[in-house]
């Protein structure tokens, strides 16, 4: 009896990749100049400003949106599988709150310059990850996964408290709105240098995660079972989580806190494809890119003024989450 009906995995992934490419092209043409909607191709040849706008603003933004989605979704999938918990997201282990604290700290105490805020966010994101690992090693009870979860919660809470203090100390007229906007997340300030910074890290991390996709399956089992299958669960989990967290830190430092992408897209992927990492790891990257790109297009065009991307991903993510939970499962064949 055939249990799973539908297109083959390769066919479905190829179709989704083609859809992502199409969306990227359409998103590059989508904007408010010369008029709201699609920029005609003729305008790009005739209007130098339109061409410059596409090449210097829209193209890097679209590429960053795809990198952001692919990184958060694949990292979220890896985190959920390694922790054996579908409610974990990639900012776990102090990465997101660390980045937020780093950005706020820089804005209030050092400078509001974008490059400095991003650098500080990245440094504190990695610091949050390092603290979580360090604390997990010091906790004297429970298995490795439980210790990491507890350490991640504790470190995130410390950084959250720190953000509260920073907000309290911030100038309400100048610094506080800047911190709030950063915390809501967005790609409004993205330039080519952000692509040059984030792309190598995200592409390398995603490639390694795809290469390790079978191993991630094994690491989703209990520690002793994973050990009995010839792995080194502690070392290999550390490796996978570090790669996923570094990719997350890279994109969060550029875009701010973008919630729900790393939570809902892995759920959606497992619903559409399968839980098996051979399928869910690559598929989550493509779906993450599509989801974030659509959200970013909505963020910049849905209302007269641009909405923060994090607000749209939360809204659409929550709606999708309800739909995914309510709908009957549809999966593709291997």
């Amino acid at each position, binding site marked *: 009896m055939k249990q799973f009906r539908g297109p083959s995995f390769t066919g479905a992934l190829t179709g989704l990749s083609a859809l992502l490419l199409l969306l990227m092209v359409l998103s590059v043409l989508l904007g408010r100049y010369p008029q709201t909607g699609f920029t005609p191709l003729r305008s790009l040849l005739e209007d130098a400003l339109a061409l410059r706008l596409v090449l210097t603003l829209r193209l890097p933004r679209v590429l960053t949106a795809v990198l952001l989605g692919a990184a958060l979704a694949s990292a979220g999938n890896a985190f959920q599988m390694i922790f*054996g918990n579908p409610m974990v997201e990639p900012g776990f282990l102090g990465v997101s709150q660390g980045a937020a604290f780093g950005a706020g700290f820089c804005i209030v105490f050092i400078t509001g310059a974008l490059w400095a805020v991003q650098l500080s966010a990245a440094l504190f994101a990695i610091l949050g990850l390092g603290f979580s690992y360090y604390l997990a090693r010091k906790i004297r009870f429970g298995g490795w996964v439980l210790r990491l979860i507890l350490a991640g919660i504790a470190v995130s809470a410390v950084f959250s408290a720190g953000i509260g203090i920073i907000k309290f100390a911030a100038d309400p007229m100048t610094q506080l709105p800047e911190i709030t906007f950063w915390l809501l997340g967005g790609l409004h300030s993205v330039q080519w240098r952000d692509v040059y910074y984030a792309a190598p890290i995200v592409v390398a991390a995603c490639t390694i995660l795809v290469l*390790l996709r*079978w191993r991630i*399956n094994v690491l*989703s089992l209990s520690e002793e079972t994973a*050990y009995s*299958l010839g792995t080194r669960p502690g070392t290999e989990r550390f490796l996978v989580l570090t790669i996923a967290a570094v990719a997350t830190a890279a994109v969060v430092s550029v875009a701010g806190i973008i919630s729900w992408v790393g939570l809902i897209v892995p759920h959606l992927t497992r619903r559409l494809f399968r*839980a098996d990492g051979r399928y869910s790891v690559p598929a989550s990257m493509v779906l993450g890119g599509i989801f974030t790109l659509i959200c970013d297009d909505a963020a910049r065009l849905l209302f007269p003024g641009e909405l923060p991307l994090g607000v749209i991903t939360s809204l659409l993510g929550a709606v999708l989450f309800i739909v995914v939970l309510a709908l009957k499962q549809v999966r593709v064949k291997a």
Partner: protein
Amino acid sequence: MKMVCYTLKGVSYAYHTHQEIIRNLSIHVPEGKVTAILGPNGIGKTTFLHIALGWLKPLEGEVTLHGTSLGRYSRRDLGKAVSLVPQNEHISFDYSVLEYVLLGRTPYLRPLALPGDEDVAVAREALETAGIAHLEHKPVHELSGGEAQMMLLARSLAQQPRVILMDEPTSHLDLANKGKVFDLVRSLSFRGVSVLLTSHEPDEAFAVSDFTILIGKGGLVMAGDTPEVMSAENLQRIYGVPIRVEKVNGHTHFIWYQCKG
């Protein structure tokens, strides 16, 4: 001379300082037989299995498998030699039965490799042996307790191990499923696979095992061929309750008394 699977020499293990759960244990486990590790709850049976797996390192002493110290095996070689059937396996995501059983092929794959057609064939053979080939496409979360236990066994068979460690494999099963597991265990032993299983049920251990290791409080251990070791006197010492042995139609039963008067 009996072939030896495991040799433990002076093995001690403690989860907390000064609370040794296994103390100075020296024992030979025979090759190609079903060995039952029998004892009351919390006495260290699972710890014993995890030491045999190499997952827990003894604080003192040495464990050898087929004459080679466990520490000298590479991770992959040990994965090919020894498989584990845990008491419970919490599977968080909804793999199909075949996908889960295919995980048993991991020790045969290089770190970045994916299973190929040959691995799928071995996994399907394991499903066939476990009698659950018809469940190949079924999501693991839709299996009954008995089917899930056979799936764990099938995953362990896909490792094509020489030794299978089973942690209370029938503790959650009804009588019919217990029978299926024991039939499979006996057939594996017949094919030369060494099976070490833990149990706290003397009847079950007696029915399925050739060799028995009795573990009691204070590190008390008796080991030997099952009919010799599993006497009423030895079991009383291990469990601390009166036990009577009765033969009914040639089958041995262990009857324990709870009621007084």
